[in-house]
């Protein structure tokens, strides 16, 4: 203990105190303060960046979900549109078929009517021709009869043989 006290140098104690005080002052001013401030700024920057990345990730997830919903909706809309179109097509086809059927029926009806009227006209024509022929025959027969009895008869026979009734 005595030796320890003997070794204790008050001068060194004073020098150490003064130098350490100076060192603390200089280092705090020129080193520790700027260093700690920069470190804190940097840590804050890193934290902010991480937070921003996290929120960006969440936003991204939201956007993805939104677009997926949109896609789903669009798909559903397409489906309904296709379905509607198909139905419309069927409808149109059915309508057209019906229309065509009706039109055809009408045409056939008309044709039938025309045929009927043509037939009637033809029959009437034939009738009038037969009447004319009969009249001509009657005329010729009458003429022959006036000249020769036998000839008249023959003529009637020939005429009747030539005439073809259809």
């Amino acid at each position: 203990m005595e030796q320890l006290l003997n070794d204790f140098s008050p001068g060194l104690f004073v020098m150490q105190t003064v130098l350490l005080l100076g060192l603390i002052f200089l280092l705090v001013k020129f080193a520790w303060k700027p260093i700690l401030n920069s470190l804190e700024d940097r840590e804050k920057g890193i934290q902010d960046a991480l937070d921003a990345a996290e929120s960006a990730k969440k936003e991204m997830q939201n956007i993805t979900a939104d677009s997926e919903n949109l896609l789903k909706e669009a798909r559903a809309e397409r489906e309904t549109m296709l379905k509607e179109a198909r139905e419309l097509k069927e409808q149109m086809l059915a309508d057209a078929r019906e229309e065509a059927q009706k039109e055809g029926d009408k045409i056939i009806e008309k044709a039938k009517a025309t045929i009927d009227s043509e037939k009637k006209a033809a029959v009437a024509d034939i009738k009038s021709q037969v009447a004319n022929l009969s009249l001509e025959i009657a005329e010729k027969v009458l003429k022959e009869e006036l000249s020769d009895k036998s000839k008249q008869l023959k003529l009637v026979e020939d005429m009747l043989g030539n005439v073809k009734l259809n």
Partner: protein
Amino acid sequence: MKFSHRSHLVFTTFFAVLFSATLWASDEEKHEGAVNKPEHVAAYIQHHIKDAHDFHLYSYTDTHGERKHVGFPLPVIVWSSKGLATFMSSKFHHDDDGKVIVEAGGTRFVKLHSKIYELEAGADTVAFDETHHATNAHKVLDFSITKSVFGILLVGLLMFFWFSRLARQYKSRKVPKGFGRVLEPLVLYVRDEIAKPNIGEKRYREFTGYLLTVFFFIWILNLLGLTPLGFNVTGQLAVTAALAIFTLIIYTFKGNKGYWGHMLWMPGVPVLIRPVLAIIEVAGAFLIKPFSLLVRLFANISAGHIVVMSLIAIMVTMKAEIGAVGATALSFILSFFITLIEVLVAFLQAYIFTMLSALFIGMAVEEHDHH
């Protein structure tokens, strides 16, 4: 590149000074200071762990059988009865036994066991009593740039150079490069592992500067002590006492109401016990805490130096028993491993001193709102 050039210049200058000092060598003593016999070892170690007035690097005996000392002298600055006196330590010519008398500032000085004594008026030689104490000389206030002060200045400059450079780096870049990249994690370590947990998030900032300074100061000086330069700064009582008193002053003046309340009038215990506790607490705060800080650091570092040097000395002390080769090998192996442990101790003691300082400060500024 600019910086590496500059630091290169600094170190070149430093070593140029060291080697030019080689010229300063004494030839007066013969074989004095040579440690070749076991009797010399204890005195040599005792001498080494003390502060010194010159920077001694090594000694050798030249071909003419003359003892040469290599190193450089340091300025002696003392406050004597006649006022301030300054001279270079080379004037003592390596004398440590009070034989060489130096006249300066109108009075006479001798150096005795690494201390400067002023001779009383009229005395021509130092007279000793039977316990080898000087009877006609007294100690003076010694503000010399001793080896320890030189070490403190060196470490101070080194720290200022390193850390102000690191601080400047942050102006241009977020992540430091080069040596700053080594220093940054250490700064973060002190801040996050020592200051924050012991003082608390709220107030750690105002004390971190002190803790960082003390941590690096002690650690670098501890490590310097392990180099062959032979510094023993943190093994000087005066140095560790100053450090401990800094911590004492900080936690005494920064202590809040709760701290003083708990110290002087402990709440939650019977009133009669309170004065007794107050005595114990006051003794704890003003004596035990700083004393434990200063003695722990001083004793650990001094003991480390003594153990390393004793193990190195095995090559002298055991030469007779196991031969020169065996003693040298044994001493090399043992001192190698103990030096590795000392590297750990160097860090550990810096850590413990800083951690306890932070803890004491933390106790003084802690919020006592739970009563």
